């Protein structure tokens, strides 16, 4: 198993290499940040000087070479806005994002598992219709709209939770619900269809034939099997979750990576953009690796090779 993880970690390197190239190209074609960095009345000379000092006058390949040399030392360059190295700023924001993502996942799991199992075992019942219909509606609801509605109702009108920011538990609840329920909508549908398939398997009938209580038939024999595809799909959705945090963080002024990234894009703070995208890509890859390991732990038929 250790060997397998090592090999998978080594495979990450070329993937990150490709991602870094794509990120660089995107930033390159995004255009000149200098105009935004200087005051409107800056002279042509100032502009040229700043360009020169940032190395923006060099040809594409030289710029890319410089960028890669920096990257090899985990140096994404200096942030224009913060005037310090970009990576520490990004890493400083990371815990807030992880906190939100984990809280959202807990919300999602707490909703999706019971609801998915319930609607599968009571197929076509009122509960099932409401749960599946609700999931479709919820999935269609944009994150930012739901976030604003929650703020309006629970913060502004009822005053139960703070409007924005981070600090206490109560700050976390609304953003976690906003992000988590969206994930739950998708997850409920996966769990439902996975459970429906598993409930028809022969071993579920065997479990019943032993005289097992229906609760154990469903939760021990069926659910464990249904979980395997759900884990994979959820891990593959990490990128969606990250995308969701970007929006949710902006709505709630949550001081995380997403908010930082959006600000950096708006101000063309390219060092921050590059470092953020790089870190996000790394998280997505790491989550996929984690899913593969979980997969193995859940299913004894799968061996590491």
């Amino acid at each position, binding site marked *: 198993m250790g060997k397998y993880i090592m090999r998978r970690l080594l495979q990450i390197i070329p993937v990150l290499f490709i991602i870094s190239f794509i990120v660089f190209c995107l930033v390159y074609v995004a255009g000149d940040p200098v105009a935004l960095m200087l005051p409107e009345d800056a002279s042509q000379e100032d502009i040229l000087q700043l360009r020169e000092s940032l190395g923006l006058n060099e040809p594409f390949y030289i710029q890319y070479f410089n960028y890669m040399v920096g990257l090899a030392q985990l140096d994404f360059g200096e942030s224009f806005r913060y005037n310090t190295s970009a990576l520490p700023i990004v890493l400083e924001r990371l815990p807030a994002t992880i906190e939100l993502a984990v809280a959202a996942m807990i919300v999602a799991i707490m909703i999706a598992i019971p609801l998915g199992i319930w609607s599968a075992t009571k*197929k076509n019942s009122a509960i099932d219709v409401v749960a599946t219909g609700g999931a479709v509606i919820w999935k269609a609801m944009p994150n930012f709209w739901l976030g604003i509605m929650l703020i309006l109702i629970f913060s502004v009108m009822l005053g139960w939770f703070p409007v924005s920011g981070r600090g206490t538990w109560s700050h976390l609840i609304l953003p976690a619900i906003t992000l988590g329920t969206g994930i739950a909508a998708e997850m409920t549908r996966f769990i439902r269809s996975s459970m429906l398939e598993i409930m028809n*398997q*022969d*071993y579920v*009938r*065997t*479990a*019943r*034939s*032993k*005289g*097992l*209580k229906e609760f154990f038939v469903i939760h021990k*024999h069926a659910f*464990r*099997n249904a979980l395997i595809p759900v884990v994979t799909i959820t891990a593959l959705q990490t990128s969606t979750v990250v995308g969701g945090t970007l929006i949710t963080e902006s709505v709630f002024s949550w001081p995380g990576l997403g908010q930082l990234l959006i600000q950096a894009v708006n101000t063309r703070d390219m060092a921050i953009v590059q470092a953020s995208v790089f870190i996000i890509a790394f998280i997505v890859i790491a989550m996929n690796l984690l899913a593969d390991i979980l997969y193995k732990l*859940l*299913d*004894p*038929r799968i061996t590491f090779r």
Partner: protein
Amino acid sequence: MGRESLLEVRNLKTYFYTEDGVIPSVDGVSFTIKKGETVAVVGESGSGKSVTSLSIMGLLDAAGKIESGTIIFEGNDITKLSKKDRRKLRGNEMAMIFQEPLTSLNPLFTVGNQISEAIKIHQKVDKKEAKKRSIEILKKVGIARAEKVYHSYPHLLSGGMRQRVMIAIALSCNPKLLIADEPTTALDVTIQAQILQLMKELIKDKQTSILFITHDLGVVAEMADQVIVMYAGQVVEYTDVFTLFKEAAHPYTKSLLASTPKIHEQTEKLQVIEGTVPNPNAMPSGCRFHTRCPYVMEKCMNNEPVLTNIHTRHQVKCWLYEEEG
């Protein structure tokens, strides 16, 4: 033959409520299993054999419902029991072995877990004792390295081994009735023989009754005391195994026997029964076999025959014998 009866099925009707309408899968089936007796149910796919057994076990899926009839098990009508009381019988008083050993065991749990689970539910013993008993029963079903197999996952075992494990699970609580739904169909011929032999040995001194579902007449000859021949959800012939092979009466049974290849008769072509089992939501009128019957008469088409005694303990549902009965 003065043995006590263990299971009496009387006029059982099991219907499936589907989107295409009501499907009468089992339509008025009656039979009796005595203690220690093996009764084989024979018929083509779709004849209602498996649904009969699932009705007895109480394992019908949501669409299936016992419409009418009684299932008397040890004197009690179990169709009237609550779900909870029904569950207490399952795996304990009556157990079942299924056709597909490869998919009947849960891939995520060890063999030991799946055997001891049944023991723990019904015998109220602790983990250690359940393990001890599980290993004992694994040895009894002829598994050599029982200790090792106890800790194995099903995917590491062969089909024959898995069916042995299934038998071990079924027999772990010494059931009075064992329902075997084509337990050897998915296995190699040599393994088939071993499994049948094993089942015979295991029940020999336990007085376990078996309801043996099969389409293989060779297996019937090997295992059964009584035989029920089913066609399109109904019993068409019901007799003991010797009578069946010596003087089968119903045209369907005769065709079934004729379509079994015999080793000492060199024939170019296998005998087949023309046509297929009728679709359950479009049953032919009259005798359900009349569309395929070589002896079909005028009255077979519109009037349904009844199951009549043509000799002692030999019942046939056919107009050919109506006068004689």
